[in-house]
């Protein structure tokens, strides 16, 4: 059975993103928004059984594109100071910060710095120590698995807060599934100890240099990393008054 969708041209992210695509050119490099999902059809039905008429629908989903200057508010100041502090520490800003995303649009925008993994620790140290940045409180790490973002499948998102300046931002680091290594930030933020263990437990990201990277929520001998998208929910069908309700991950769903 051939998939009717396979021979059709896949729309590019900028076509589907519409007004939120922004500029794709940041500095001298071209940064593509990250495709995190490619939806096909509708209602989760594929092949000949699909009579919905939506069978040929192919829709890539991309995260908001990198922003261009001015970022707005205090974001520009923070990025400028970070570039300066990194320069003094001998780290090129363009190499360390791959892109800057301002999302969601509007007054309540939040700043996300996409940082190259090899420069994560110096960036965190700069963010924590410089008196004009002072992101002294780390509120943890959360992993996200984007199986369609080829070469950058696993993301670790660090949530930093500056109590001094009443600001908060995100630092996002990506690593490929084939080489799931990210340097540990516990030397800068000891609070990330358990959060990194949790991210290892649920996503399989190895935090190099972590003092004791062991599973924290799942049993020590658990196979696999449960929060990854390719890990099934593991529900069992429920029988109620003669009818069988399938587990939520195998139910017909809206794509």
């Amino acid at each position, binding site marked *: 059975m051939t998939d009717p969708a396979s021979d059709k041209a896949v729309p590019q992210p900028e076509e589907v993103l519409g007004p939120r695509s922004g500029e794709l050119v940041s500095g001298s490099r071209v940064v593509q928004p990250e495709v995190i999902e490619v939806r096909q059809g509708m209602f989760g039905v594929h092949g000949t059984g699909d009579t919905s008429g939506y069978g040929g629908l192919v829709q890539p989903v991309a995260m908001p594109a990198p922003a261009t200057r001015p970022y707005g508010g205090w974001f520009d100041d923070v990025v400028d100071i970070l570039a300066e502090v990194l320069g003094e520490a001998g780290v090129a800003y363009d190499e360390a910060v791959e892109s800057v995303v301002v999302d969601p649009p509007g007054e309540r925008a939040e700043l996300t710095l996409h940082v190259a993994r090899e420069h994560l620790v110096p960036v965190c140290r700069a963010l924590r120590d410089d008196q004009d940045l002072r992101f002294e409180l780390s509120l943890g790490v959360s992993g996200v698995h984007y199986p369609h973002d080829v070469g950058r499948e696993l993301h670790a998102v660090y949530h930093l807060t500056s109590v001094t300046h009443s600001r908060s931002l995100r630092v996002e680091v990506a690593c490929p599934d084939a080489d799931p290594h990210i340097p540990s930030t516990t030397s800068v933020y000891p609070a990330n100890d358990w959060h990194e263990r949790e991210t290892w437990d649920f996503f399989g990201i190895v935090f190099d240099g972590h003092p004791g990277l062991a599973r924290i929520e*799942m049993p020590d001998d658990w196979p696999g990393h449960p929060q990854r998208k390719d890990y099934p929910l593991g529900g069992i069908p429920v029988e109620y008054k003669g009818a069988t309700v399938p587990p939520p991950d195998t139910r017909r769903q809206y794509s």
Partner: protein
Amino acid sequence: MSTSAPPYHATRPPVGDFDPGIPGFEASGGDWDEIAREAVGEERIVVNMGPQHPSTHGVLRLMLEIDGETVSEARCGIGYLHTGIEKNMEFRTWTQGTTFCTRMDYLAPLFQETAYCLGVEKLLGVVDDVPERASVIRVLMMELNRVASHLVCLGTGGNEMGATTVMTIAFTAREEILRVFEAVTGLRMNHAYIRPGGVATDVPEGLEDQVRHALVEVRKYLGQLGDLMLANPIFKARLVGVGELSLAGCMALGITGPVLRSTGLPYDVRKAFPYSGYETYDFDVPTDTAADCYSRVVLRLEECYQSLKIVEQCLTRLADTAGAPVMVADRKIAWPAQLAVGADGQGNSLDHIRQIMGTSMEALIHHFKLVTEGFRVPVGQTWQTVEHPRGELGVHLVSDGGTKPYRAHFRDPSFNNLQAVSVMCEGGQVADVVVAVASLDPVLGGVDR
């Protein structure tokens, strides 16, 4: 506020030349003597406290390396209550998410609901469209919940030290608040009352009288708790100077909430990053500088009074906004239900169902689509924090533009704060471990999620 340490201490040698004038006795079991004699100088003794131990607030496992009565190393083992709530949320609609996250920290369910809903609203771009009455109800419910949660902390903390009366008073007071919750949401816990866009239903008639009655009762019980604990020499002997954690330690370990404020830093998300209109309420953030377990008890009591102050302001605003909507006007987001108390308890309004089923096919289709498919949330990610009774609760939401969260992560304050157990307990007595853990107030449902 200053707390002068008493000249004696329950778990340490007397200070200076303090002499209670009472002869001391030591009791020891025969078996234990043999074990200790064999182990001395040879091997270390590691004692597992929990996961089934009454003083560990659920299923916390403490691994203590002890030398006599002194704890030389303390480590936490968690995960015994992990239920995969975050994973489950990825398979349900955005609205159903509240039903899941309310079950995380079961002593403070309304905070998870609010944080999650604020995050979803931010992604939807409807933060400013949430009706004022809905925000007032959220604040009212959260502050009552904060008092209820602190009461459990103080009550169980007292119980663990043998003060059963503290527990019975605290739980009696909490009962008053749970009755209010039951009247508003239909449930005493696991409410799923706060929904993206507002709240599920307006507060019932006569709530103001009920809450005002509860306020009087809770104040009375809080006064009794204060009288029982704060000047009690035995209580102070157990708590003053125990479980100290400095400001630097708190910041390094990401500790927030009463534990951070007991070091003197007035960091409160309600003031630092206001949400739900907290900037318009009049309340103080109590702090202390002793940074010990006793000061945390005092702070929790103080916070209860501050919360009651906010509740009173909420009641005035509720009276002013009577009849106003409690859900966004956008019918593509607002759940098309109208709840009413039927003969069988709480349920859908029969008039509303009759209208949908009998008069409008479009309304029926819309109802069906919204309930089964849910609404779509624009692509992106957001981070929303609220001041939870135990610290800063963060919600990281990622949307792929679908009807379900792509990822929902909760940064539970108890999870993070448990990292401080080693620092707070090592070098102290085994009996101090119980007090120190109680001052962190971990709730394992939130820790393990």
